[in-house]
């Protein structure tokens, strides 16, 4: 472990999420960094990965021989499935989430705030990707985790008192995993659950009043 680097790699962020997963639980993975999780989960944990385009039981990646144009995840990437997988239509797929049957949901984000609100679908006047399934995914799972780099490319911290970008969901996030640490939005503040090795509170770029320590 190199202290000089002072932040987690993507894979180390992924491992923080994996630590939070109970054996045998069901898990939805959003587009972007979260999809990396599928490849790093130890099979013996028996996690059932859901992708909202209509599959439960995502395993990893296909081989060039087994690849199928009709077998993809919500990021449109080719996947493979494990024994016991199932396919279903989009209405059933989102019903699984909305109805509370998926234990954990991991999404990417542009901003997240102390209230647990998330913004990840548009930057007014600049970029609109659309919300895709994110506005549905944030309601229903018992544990909603947002994974995002702590700072934007322009160096702005993404953990704010209140999001300034249009919201994906209001007060919906339970845990935040960045390259600097793991946080719980409490409504008033970000409770620090864990920091990456060598990272100090000052480096977080979050005003003191917005930080609290885990009890």
């Amino acid at each position: 472990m190199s202290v000089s680097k002072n932040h987690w790699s993507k894979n180390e962020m992924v491992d923080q999420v994996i630590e939070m997963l109970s054996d045998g639980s069901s898990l939805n993975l959003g587009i972007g960094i979260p999809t990396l999780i599928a490849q790093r989960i130890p099979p013996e944990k028996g996690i059932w990965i859901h992708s909202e385009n209509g599959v439960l039981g995502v395993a990893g990646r296909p081989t060039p021989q087994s690849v199928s144009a009709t077998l993809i995840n919500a990021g449109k990437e080719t996947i493979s499935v494990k024994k016991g997988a199932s396919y279903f239509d989009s209405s059933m797929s989102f019903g699984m989430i909305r109805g509370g049957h998926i234990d954990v949901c991991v999404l990417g984000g542009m901003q997240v705030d102390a209230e647990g609100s998330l913004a990840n679908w548009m930057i007014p006047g600049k970029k609109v990707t659309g919300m895709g399934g994110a506005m549905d995914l944030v309601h229903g799972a018992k544990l909603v985790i947002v994974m995002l780099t702590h700072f934007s490319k322009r160096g702005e911290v993404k953990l704010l008192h209140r999001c300034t970008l249009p919201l994906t969901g209001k007060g919906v996030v339970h845990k935040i995993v960045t390259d600097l640490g793991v946080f719980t939005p409490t409504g008033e503040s970000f409770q620090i659950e864990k920091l990456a090795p060598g990272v100090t509170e000052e480096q977080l770029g979050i005003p003191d009043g917005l930080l609290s320590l885990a009890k």
Partner: protein
Amino acid sequence: MTSKVFKDAKAALFDMKDGASVMSGGFGLCGIPENSILEIRRLGLKNLHAISNNIGNSGRGLAWLLKEKQISQATCSYVGGNPDLEEQMLANEVEVTLVPQGTFSERIRAAGMGIRGFYTPAGSGTEVAEGKESRTFDMPCLLELPLTADFAIIKAQKGDAYGNLWFQETARNFSPLMAMAAKVTIVEVEELVELGEILPENVHLPGVFVQRIYQGADYENTIEIPVFEDQN
């Protein structure tokens, strides 16, 4: 008795007109009705209202129609990975309505199943809530209304003469829901099978929802983002 089986896309799309609203199945390029989309391009229909999760992707699928400026209105959930749509949206050439994906599919199902409205938490407290009725159950919810269309064009891997369909892997996505919701549902299949070949228990979409069906041809079945085990 009139048969539902048509010779090809040209025969099946005979009455589609400028200005039609058209639902198109598929997630990205997975499960898209390639033949019907290309026929719409050939017909040169204009001013279409496309209802589809992505309105094509990576320059293909419904993006074939975007390139020809055939779509003036789009209802979808995601425009990322679709530069044609992003460009025409920012240039105000296409009026885009973004709908959360789960709400999108449930609104389409509602239209098909005769549900006149439903409450969902998705979008509550966001811009999507603007102009919508809100109501708190265990949490704040929005009233969402059915989404229908003049036509649905969808693709299935297998189908029979009555229109019973079977979809492979994740190609199912929005297609059976759209088939239920549209006034006229036109299905293209990779394989037109005999009645009874799809076990009655395994029919994904009963034929009563299908008005026209034809055997498609020359499928590209493009993979957008091939990722392989070896690359990890």
